[in-house]
């Protein structure tokens, strides 16, 4: 009898300690699973939203803002009368469910009433950005920018082709044809297409019309296709260009200036010889 009592106490203790262990283990499991899930999840989302070579409908916000604002409802897709727009499916390797278009397949025909923009419920397609003087104006939209590969464009070879120029809905402004003498024959002209970023909307009708096997003119997102001169350079001859650098801020230089004079560097050959 007397032996049984401490045994029971021991049992109780054991149960208590396993309870505590179980609790701690469960806590650790929850934390572990949350960390694992969170990491995989955020890594995937980060990866899938990193694709930059994607063309958005007219009036789309900057890609970063677009990704957080688009609710992926597909109203723009349904509003488009030309079936230009698609929602990204699994397997398209684009941010899932977001609208995009591929101009070589179906370009944007630049409807003057822009049916795809006002239907957007979240403002990811911003009506204001395609409105000028109180009216919708598709010609100020910036879906992308056409880029020409001179090497494969047959107009640059000297063969006469103005397919992109003729297809362009902003004909003459977004694409112009520049003449240059063909020195090889001596009596013909090169008629070279040139894209002007001020007018090009990125609709892709040129890419659609291009006669080469793989288009020699193609639309890229403006962020990808364009460089930026920055605030260090200004067109001194252009009064209007000052507006561009009005708010420029030089920042603070932290590199120490060399204390040696310029002449020293010519005569100082000490480091060339061993001691």
């Amino acid at each position: 009898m007397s032996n049984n009592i401490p045994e029971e106490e021991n049992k109780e203790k054991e149960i208590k300690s396993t309870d505590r262990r179980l609790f701690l283990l469960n806590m650790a499991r929850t934390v572990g699973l949350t960390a694992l899930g969170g990491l995989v999840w955020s890594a995937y989302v980060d990866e899938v939203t990193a694709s930059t070579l994607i063309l958005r409908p007219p009036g789309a916000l900057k890609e970063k803002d677009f990704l957080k604002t688009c609710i992926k409802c597909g109203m723009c897709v349904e509003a488009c009368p030309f079936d230009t727009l698609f929602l990204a499916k699994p397997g398209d390797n684009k941010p899932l469910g977001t609208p995009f278009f591929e101009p070589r397949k179906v370009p944007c025909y630049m409807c003057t009433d822009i049916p795809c923009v006002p239907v957007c419920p979240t403002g990811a397609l911003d009506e204001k950005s395609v409105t000028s003087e109180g009216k919708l104006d598709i010609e100020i939209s910036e879906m992308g920018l056409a880029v020409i590969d001179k090497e494969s464009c047959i107009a640059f070879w000297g063969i006469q082709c103005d397919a992109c120029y003729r297809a362009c809905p902003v004909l003459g402004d977004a694409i112009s044809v520049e003449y240059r003498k063909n020195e090889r024959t001596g009596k013909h002209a090169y008629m070279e297409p040139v894209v002007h970023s001020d007018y090009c909307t990125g609709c892709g009708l040129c890419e659609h019309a291009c006669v080469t096997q793989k288009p020699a003119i193609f639309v890229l997102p403006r962020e990808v296709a364009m460089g930026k001169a920055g605030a260090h350079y200004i067109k001194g001859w252009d009064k209007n260009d000052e507006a561009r650098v009005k708010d420029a801020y030089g920042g603070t230089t932290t590199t120490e200036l060399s204390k040696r004079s310029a002449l020293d560097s010519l005569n100082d050959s000490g480091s060339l010889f061993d001691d």
Partner: protein
Amino acid sequence: MISLINKHKYLISRRFTQIGILVLYFGANAYGWNILIGNLSSSLLFGLIPMSDPYAALQMYAAGALIATDLLIGVGIVVLLYMFVGGRVFCSWVCPVNMITDLSNYLRRRFGFNLIQKKQPASRNIRYWVIVMSLVISFSLGVTAFEFISPISMIHRGVVFGLGFGWAAMLIIFLFDLFVLKNGWCGHICPLGGFYSLIGKFSFIRVHHNVDNCTECMKCKEVCSEVQVLHMITKESIPVISGECTNCARCIEVCDDDALNFSIKKLIKNKEESQNEIN
């Protein structure tokens, strides 16, 4: 035959609404019908009434997006609707994934998997953790985290706009629910279901249990996909108060003894009060 239909009237009407809604969305995209355009993330009813997914809007807010007025109105309408009819009515009457997981459950019952594996090895609270996680990721990466992986919108969008590899999402959920975890997706993981559970806490339409009629056959617990909400069966005559109940009404139709029924929350309260007064 009539009794068979009677025994499945809610199931049949649920399939009818689920498929009907899919057809309306599909028709809007394919044939330009103007009844229900968009998809479950955001849509326009009769070209007039906006409806938007409140959970997606919450993620957008966490990601730092400007919330448009149209979206806000749509969210308000959806929240009010589900507050009235029961939050997870979305899950059992609208969501297309429900058809897949119901099939898994049916096969599970048919093959007797539930008898072999009685206790499920996962907590039903995972979904609330997934909600928290989705908001943290949305906030830190500045994108709507769940919307980029959601198999619900993948499948629904797939039906309306073209599937791509979306069939893989269907297959994974089907196999997961069939072999890995009973009610695995809808009952444990899905944060959208979790979100509607939270909204459903305040809803009016409830399943009510009448213990006097109960013969303890336990058919209701066998078919229920959120079996923890039926804790009062054989014990008390009270309504199901948990927001996790999907109001699918399977328990009502399998009950042969009229021990389960729909009721409106407030009326129940009034009745109870009047009964108390009499007592």
